[in-house]
């Protein structure tokens, strides 16, 4: 029996520069007397609501700075919401932190392993924080080290570990107390393809035990192959949510042809719209046009013909198959990597 998550109208406004930049501002030698400083304000989340069902793999997808980590931060008690509420199971995350914390395990975006301890000690102490008995935590630590192929490095200090090993240990640590919900913040950033596949397998295995998994990613293929449901987030707002299949079906046409010409006059746009299978044509800067259609390659011929007829030169064609990438582009007008 898994645990679900519900968040309601979550808003987060940072009034100081967000964590990494803010920390360390201890002494200041510049007197702040001159004109009142411009008030710092960053809206990281702007009224986000969604529900994650018990036992599903849920993905939060969006570019850097979209609000993914802030959402995870709030759900894991590390960030105080400006307004709105979040529930882990029946517990209000902010008001009943201790009860919520018992239910969740977190794999952070950047490894934050305890550098003063060995790999095995990290797991054993983590178990102790969660009140496991000495025998229980020793046994579980050994099992997890074995499972994550870290047994031979168990007594080494983690500062000597490679990035991939740290990541594996982070996941092992998050699973140590057998949490009902596992949060993974950008779990495959910086992993080699092999480790990435291993990670996916581990996540699926854990999910099979009835556990809820929440992961953030900006890799479309990861979201696509791993997640049962997704929310796409941008500028602190949810712009679409559903299963990967539903979301992809919502893209008009499905295929996206990105065309570059030497210029895009209105007549050409009109001409493109009349081509067979085309559902939508957009232009942003008068040299590029995005064509949404139910087919890809077969349209190239007619497009070239139309361009030639208008005396316009076609410079480049890129065909994207139906994917979450094109979905993101459709909703935001930006590519995920922008």
């Amino acid at each position, binding site marked *: 029996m898994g645990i679900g998550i519900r968040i309601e109208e979550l808003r987060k406004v*940072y009034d100081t520069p*967000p*964590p990494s930049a*803010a*920390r*360390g*501002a*201890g*002494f200041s030698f510049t007197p702040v007397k001159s004109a009142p400083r411009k008030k710092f304000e960053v809206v990281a989340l702007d009224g986000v609501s969604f529900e994650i069902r018990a036992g599903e793999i849920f993905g939060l997808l969006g570019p850097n700075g979209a609000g993914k980590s802030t959402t995870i*931060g709030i759900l*894991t*008690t*590390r*960030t*105080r919401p400006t307004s709105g509420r979040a529930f882990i199971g029946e517990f209000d995350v902010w008001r009943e*932190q*201790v*009860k919520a*914390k*018992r239910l*969740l395990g*977190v794999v*952070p975006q*950047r490894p*934050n*392993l*305890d*550098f*003063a*301890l060995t790999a095995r*000690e*990290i797991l054993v*102490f*983590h178990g*102790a*924080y*969660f*009140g496991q008995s000495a025998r229980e935590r020793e046994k579980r630590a050994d099992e997890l080290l074995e499972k994550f192929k870290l047994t031979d490095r168990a007594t080494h200090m983690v500062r000597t570990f490679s990035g991939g090993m740290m990541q594996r240990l982070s996941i092992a*640590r998050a699973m140590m107390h057998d949490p009902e919900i596992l949060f993974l913040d950008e779990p495959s950033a910086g992993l080699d393809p092999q480790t990435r596949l291993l990670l996916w397998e581990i996540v699926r295995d854990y999910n099979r035990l009835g556990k809820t998994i929440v992961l953030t990613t900006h890799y479309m293929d990861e979201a696509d192959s791993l997640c049962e449901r997704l929310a796409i987030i941008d500028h602190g707002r949810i712009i679409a949510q559903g299963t990967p299949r539903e979301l992809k079906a919502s893209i008009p046409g499905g295929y996206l042809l990105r065309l570059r010409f030497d210029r895009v006059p209105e007549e050409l746009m009109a001409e493109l719209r009349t081509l067979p299978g085309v559902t939508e044509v957009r232009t942003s800067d008068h040299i590029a046009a995005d064509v949404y259609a139910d087919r890809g390659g077969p349209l190239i011929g007619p497009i070239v013909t139309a361009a030639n007829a208008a005396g316009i030169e076609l410079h480049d064609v890129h065909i994207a198959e139906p994917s979450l990438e094109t979905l993101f582009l459709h909703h935001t007008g930006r590519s995920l990597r922008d």
Partner: protein
Amino acid sequence: MNWKTFYALLSRDGHVARRNLLPMLLQNLLQPLLFTFVFGRVMTTSGMLPAAYKSMLLPGVMAISMVMAGVQAVAMPLIAEFQFTREIEDRLLAPIEIGWLAVAKIVTGMIQATFAGLVVIPAAWLLMGSGLSLNFGKPFEFAAVCLLVALFSSAGGLALGCSVGQTQIGLMFSLVLAPMMMFGCAYYPWSALSSFRVLQVAVLVNPLVYASEGLRGALAPQFPHIDTLLVIGVLTLIDGLILVLGLKKFQSKAVS
């Protein structure tokens, strides 16, 4: 309150402290011991300072050791754990109110501070040679002062560790700890400042003054010192203030 978790947090710090015992001892004790040797032995044996200076100096050196040990035991790991390695995050996710994590840090710091202070007595005895006269007739006053000094140093370490950035550790030492040591009445009794009236009043904001004077009152009462009960009162007040400040800073640092 979740004692199992609290105890686990404490034992993690204890485990790490044991592992780093030797460097930690060197870091905390070398400087005061060198000072003890130069001023307590070289200067007195050569006749540049009276032999009685030894007993006057020892409580001050003990106060400095305790304060440095407590501040460093809490502040240095905190600065690194919050900023560079972020390793504190795992403990912030432990099923306990996060304030207790700070309390565990303070308890570890207090133990280290007390240890660093007590080690000074036999070590100085060896280094200073004959002529040291200490009074152990006031065990309760001595214990109370030790406890309060240990608390303010580790709570101070908490406050400093949560407000100083990694790049400012050097500044913390030269701007906060160095003046604190020099004007902490460790190397001279407070009454010696009577010809510097303004300074004598100004140094009263320095908690180290009460630590030195309190230990002097307990261990070497033959020298002029501020009344020990007064010292205990002021230290209790300072402890309360720094504790509240430190816990507040910790909370705002731990939650974004």
